[in-house]
């Protein structure tokens, strides 16, 4: 079963990359952008078939390695 871990910077953590992308989008003529934040999407293909166990396994991996919870938060979705 596939688990998708989405890692995002916590609110309040400066994201200069997001700011630069926002400026670039404005330069291309896209307006109405209040803010841009950049994160990561990590797809895990797990042998686990039980959804609850797969979700817990992915969350454990995120807490331990995939996200740095000092600066990042994460969500797990199953696909």
């Amino acid at each position, binding site marked *: 079963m596939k688990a998708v871990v989405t890692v995002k910077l916590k609110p309040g*953590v*400066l994201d*200069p*990359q997001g700011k*630069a992308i926002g400026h670039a989008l404005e330069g291309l003529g896209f307006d109405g952008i209040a803010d841009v934040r950049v994160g990561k999407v990590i797809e895990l293909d797990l042998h686990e078939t039980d959804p609850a166990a797969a979700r817990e396994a992915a969350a454990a991996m995120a807490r*331990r*390695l*995939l996200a*740095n919870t*000092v*600066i990042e938060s994460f969500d797990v979705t199953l696909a």
Partner: protein
Amino acid sequence: MQAGIIVFPGINRERDIAMALEGSLGRRPRMIWHRETDLAGVDLVVIPGGFSYGDYLRCGAMAAQSPVMRAVSAHAARGGYVLGVCNGFQILTEAQMLPGALLRNAGLRFLSMDCHLRVERADTVFSGQYQRGQVFRAPMAHGDGNYFADADTLDRLEGEGLVAFRYVDASGAVSGAANLNGSARNIAGVLSANLRVLGLMPHPENLVDPLMGGVDGKPLFDSLAAIGVA
């Protein structure tokens, strides 16, 4: 004092720091490959700069999980000395041996230039040969040196005197202009609660010989040489 330098794949300053350590300690550091787990006989563990594991996932994230880091953590828990420079500082935060995290530089640029550091306390094993408030020059070379911690952690670091060095201008004043990577409260280096683990972003090891253009970084290594180790 026997130093050991941890060598991860992708590290590139291990020889620089070995030269600086040997110059002050008078004996050659042991090079410790990241798969080793035996630190017996090592008083000071040094994690050098570079790009361990290609900075995959986050700077220092992969190295922090490697077998040798469990041994380094145990060494620190026993009261052993640990110095992390640049990527080494990032690895120490990822391993949760020091608080906070190093974010992308606020200006997004990789910074390869000298900065000025102010010594916030001169009563540690890493800074005894400096004066408190002394300003010294240090090269820096990093893309992710923007120190971040939440406000409570920053207040605790300041309150407990665990800020080792700050980015300042040449006169020693803390300013936004001197804070090239955007670090919280101009913090360039932090200490553990027992003052035996230091992480800093700039490279004092690259200014330890007149041929390098100065010896501003040498007192840090001389400080380590000055302490007796049983």
